[in-house]
């Protein structure tokens, strides 16, 4: 029963991925301008441009090029970068570790903090603590990321001089140095994520708190702490799981702005560089990679939500 549900979700994920690959491939085709022209520059002779177009396969019909490209993806071949002729896979693998490192550090700070603060504001709802966290969360969400980043830089790098303003990590650096280097971008990302998780946790629990079984628990003399953690939380898990995993997905794919600001050598910066250079194979590869991360994390959210619900885990009649 559950296996079937999960298989269905997995199948849907594959279909989504296929559609996304179509969108990624063909939307890049819609970009104005010509790749060969862009590579060779405006002054290049038409014959040279035409020769390059043939060599890159740009003169083939679009569907043929899509099949070649998608076929390559299945074999782990993302093509070569147009800008420097290196395999796209090499470029990605240099960067992907950095992106996941930053995402993981941010997540380790943000997820537990967001959940704990959300639970606390549900327990102390309508009390000063709740009002203060609500206001802080609203601020954290409303201030755009780049502004948060610059405020943090202004305080901790410029004014206090405690932390570096840019995060140019090198492969040779030790783990401790890396932690220090990424502390500001990680803090920037974590602030937003904490705020979202906090608000969602509080709202999800708030919805459950008006249920008759919560009134029943009160009439059994259950303490306010146990009321929230033991009675409300298990029933609010599904939306909370979803918001946590959506935010994890955001940490992987939504880091573009933060990486650029802190000059952090991750996938986001690679994407921005490649767009400006019209390095289409790299842009496409990043698009598919980000989409895959998103789909996998959403899939995980669905599966966990199913497992958290006894009515789905143990359907009636199956006992």
């Amino acid at each position, binding site marked *: 029963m559950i296996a079937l549900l999960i298989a269905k979700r997995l199948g849907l994920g594959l279909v989504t991925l296929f559609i996304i690959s179509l969108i990624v491939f063909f939307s890049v085709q819609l970009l104005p301008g010509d790749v060969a022209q862009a590579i060779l520059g405006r002054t290049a002779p038409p014959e040279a441009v035409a020769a390059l177009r043939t060599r890159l396969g740009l003169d083939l019909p679009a569907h043929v090029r899509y099949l070649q490209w998608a076929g390559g993806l299945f074999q782990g071949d993302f093509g070569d970068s147009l800008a420097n002729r290196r395999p796209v896979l090499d470029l990605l693998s240099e960067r992907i570790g950095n992106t996941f490192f930053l995402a993981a550090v941010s997540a380790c700070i943000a997820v537990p903090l967001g959940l704990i603060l959300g639970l606390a504001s549900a327990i102390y709802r309508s009390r000063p603590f709740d009002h203060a966290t609500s206001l802080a969360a609203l601020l954290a969400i409303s201030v755009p990321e780049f502004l948060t980043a610059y405020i943090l830089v202004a305080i901790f790098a410029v004014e206090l001089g405690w932390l570096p303003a840019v995060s140019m990590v090198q492969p040779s650096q030790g783990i401790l140095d890396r932690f220090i280097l990424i502390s500001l971008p990680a803090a920037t990302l974590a602030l937003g994520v904490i705020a979202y998780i906090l608000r969602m946790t509080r709202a999800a629990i708030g919805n459950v708190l008006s249920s008759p079984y919560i009134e029943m628990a009160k009439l*059994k003399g259950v303490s306010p702490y146990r009321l929230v953690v033991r009675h409300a939380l*298990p029933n609010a898990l599904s939306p909370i799981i979803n918001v946590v995993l959506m935010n994890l997905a955001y940490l992987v794919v939504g880091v573009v702005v933060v990486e650029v600001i802190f000059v952090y050598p991750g996938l986001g910066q690679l994407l921005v560089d490649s767009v400006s250079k019209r390095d289409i194979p790299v842009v496409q590869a990043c698009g598919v990679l980000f989409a895959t991360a998103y789909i996998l994390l959403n899939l995980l959210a669905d599966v966990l939500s199913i497992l958290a619900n006894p009515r789905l885990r143990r359907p009636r009649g199956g006992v």
Partner: protein
Amino acid sequence: MRHEKMDPSCGEAVLDIAGLNVRARSGNQWHPIVSDVSLTLRRGEILGLVGESGSGKTTIGLASLGFARTGCAFAGGEVRFKGQDLLRMAPAARRALRGDRIAYVAQSAAISFNPARTLMEQVIESVVDRGTKSRAEARADARALFRLLHLPDPDRIGDRYPHELSGGQLQRVMAAMAMLPRPDLVIFDEPTTALDVTTQVEVLSAVRELVARFGTAAIYISHDLAVVAQLAHRIMVLRHGRLVEEGETRKMLAEPQEPYTRSLWAIRTFAKDSLPASDVLLEVNGVSASYGSLKALDNVSLTLQRGRTVAVVGESGSGKSTLARVVTGLLRANGGEIRFSGETLAASAKSRTKLQLQHLQIIHQSADASLNPLHKVREVIGRPLEFFFGLTGAQRERRIVEILEQVELGAEHLDRLPSEMSGGQKQRVCIGRALAAEPALMICDEATSALDQLVQEGILKLLTRLQQEQQISYLFITHDIATVRAIADRIVVMHRGRVVQEGPKDEVLAPPYPPYTKLLLSSVPEMDPDWLDRLLASRKQAVSDKAVS
């Protein structure tokens, strides 16, 4: 006999409510919902609180735990539990009493158990948290109570989740949960209202057994006087938050003093005479249907004549609502045929003609769930007029008012939202919406079950009048025998997806009965304090006779 054993005048007072006032806020205004109510309850005594919805009986029940719902507040009086005033106590001290010395059994166990936790966790929670019993002791005690309450598989039923049990089983588990700390006082808040009559008997006898065994004081809240009469030593009748009358049970039943009390006693005397046969409108032939692998309808056949009423009765799970879903085309039948006005109906509503959809309307049990909370009455009734007849503007407005008058509402209700009307008014709007389509057949799926008895009677009279005026046929689905008596021409008795009996009302409701019909009819509580004793004795007798033979 149990009434004679009890002498309410002796023994210590467990609960003493004096001059209780509770008020509720709507918008910026406070209005009283309980006014100046006093009562005393002694050890081992059961007090019945009787009244319609809005009479304040649940509010008084909750106040006995020192609890007021959100939007309500205590506005004076005292609630003394063994001498301590619950209303002027520190919250922590009050919490320590709840679920330990004072327990509560909620109206609908199905929604009052936490769906995400096993039953055992919830049952033993209050004693284990307080450290009165170890986990193992509490579990053993809970199993013993489950056994006492005749729950199936008492050793393992606690490991199940709420959705895995039936409503009647959950209600008994909740009674076990309340009794586990051996409280001094239990509040039973309509514990059988959501149940079928056959299940109600089991829960009633379980409640009585528990209270008698542990000598607990109890308040039993119900709108059904016949139910309260089986348990209570004394009865208090409430209306609009005030005490109408109070007295010893037998005396109250025999000689009620107040006119309002007498009107409650006289309810449900309305019954229409069976009408002669007429031409056939709906024919259901050998229909079967299932949910996945679960068979819900098994070869069901019935006929309904124009301008007549067929009542479909049975307990929950008997397939009566499934039948409604199949006839309306919301659920596809796996076999059989449905004929309506001489035409065969397509299995799915989507494939039916507009005229067929128009002539077959449905009224649901819950008017709240079937009305859009953001739509005013004008939109609710205007929509089918526009859709089926293309009426707009002043013409449409005129017709809406006409329909409102037919359902005994008026033009002043045009701009009301569902939240601004009472339960009975909302159900009238739903009937009006169905009427707007000028139907030949209305399916009423427990259309009056959620309403108070006086309101129910009004709706049944309205439906009967509309039938006489417009020759509408009703397929009336209900578990309530009094409703059947009031409205049916023919009766179909269903049990486990099959029709077990079918015939004219007077035949089905008169002996000799087939076994299931007999069980169903004998389970309807009677206005006689000895009814439950007699019923249980006769069933016990029947079982032992069977064992002998």
